[in-house]
């Protein structure tokens, strides 16, 4: 029996599936090529760029987590990779996944779960409760509200940015004809709204997730320093 995959998903959701598949294929191909490499030989070409970018990201994460960075680097970099590919997906003719509200809210939920679950695992529930009621127990509701509202705001920020970009692009496409919009697309709109704002927003989301995760994981260390 055939399962109809294209049943009634929104274009943004379909695009997010395509982006996930692209990331899976790229990761497998690059990973196998790096595995085959001789560790002593110098790396050249596109592989060198990939290795350099991941080295930069790892050293960025090391600043926040110190010795334990290996535990948190995979999920953070996976989120960043998805956002980078998703925000530039319009360059290959897909809808921007983050301009769909369900995908943006999914990102809020993912951020909430990453922060809370790793906080509970690393700090243990009792210590986590003490962290949340840190100045006094009276402030516990305020802290809980801020724990919930921060990931929500992060998802909404992505949604608003990507939606505003696509709406402005649609307005300009309507004003210009087909030829004018071709020039504007190639030269002005897509570089600004996808490569500029999209990549900046992806990096901002990654950075905020890193900082909030570090705060929930080592609240003591942050307050000591």
């Amino acid at each position, binding site marked *: 029996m055939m399962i109809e995959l294209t049943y009634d998903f929104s274009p943004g959701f379909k695009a997010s599936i395509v982006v996930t598949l692209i990331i899976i294929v790229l990761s497998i191909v690059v990973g196998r090529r790096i595995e085959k490499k001789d560790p002593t030989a110098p790396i050249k070409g596109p592989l060198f760029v990939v290795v350099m970018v991941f080295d930069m990201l790892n050293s960025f994460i090391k600043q926040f987590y110190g010795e334990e960075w290996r535990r948190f680097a995979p999920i953070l970099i996976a989120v960043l990779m998805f956002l980078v590919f998703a925000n530039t997906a319009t360059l290959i003719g897909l809808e921007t996944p983050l301009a769909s509200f369900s995908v943006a809210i999914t990102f809020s939920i993912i951020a909430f779960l990453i922060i809370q679950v790793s906080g509970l695992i690393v700090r243990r529930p009792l210590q986590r409760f003490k962290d949340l009621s840190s100045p006094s127990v009276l402030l516990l509701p305020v802290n809980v509200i801020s724990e919930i509202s921060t990931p929500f705001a992060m998802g*909404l920020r992505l949604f*608003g940015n990507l939606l505003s970009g696509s709406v402005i692009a649609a307005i300009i496409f309507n004003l210009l004809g087909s030829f004018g919009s071709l020039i504007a697309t190639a030269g002005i709109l897509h570089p600004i709204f996808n490569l500029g704002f999209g990549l900046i927003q992806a990096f901002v989301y990654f950075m905020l997730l890193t900082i909030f995760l570090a705060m929930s994981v080592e609240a003591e260390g942050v307050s000591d320093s």
Partner: protein
Amino acid sequence: MFVLTEVVFNQDFVSGLAAFGAGIAIMTGVGAGIGQGFAAGKAVEAVGRQPEASGKITTTMLVGQAMAETTGLYGLIIAFVLIGQ
């Protein structure tokens, strides 16, 4: 004697007021713009004082500006919701 009359507004009136509200909601952009400009000005001052740290300053400025943009984006989302009325 007691007749409850339901007040039904004209649809054009409703959507006109919604568009008016969307225009007011988009004014949050004023605050976001002032905040972003302030961040950019301070970053320029910082680069002038310490040119060798310009890369780090630029990254910090962009992150701060993206944070400041959030309030403007909330106004934008509310405007979109109102336009759909």
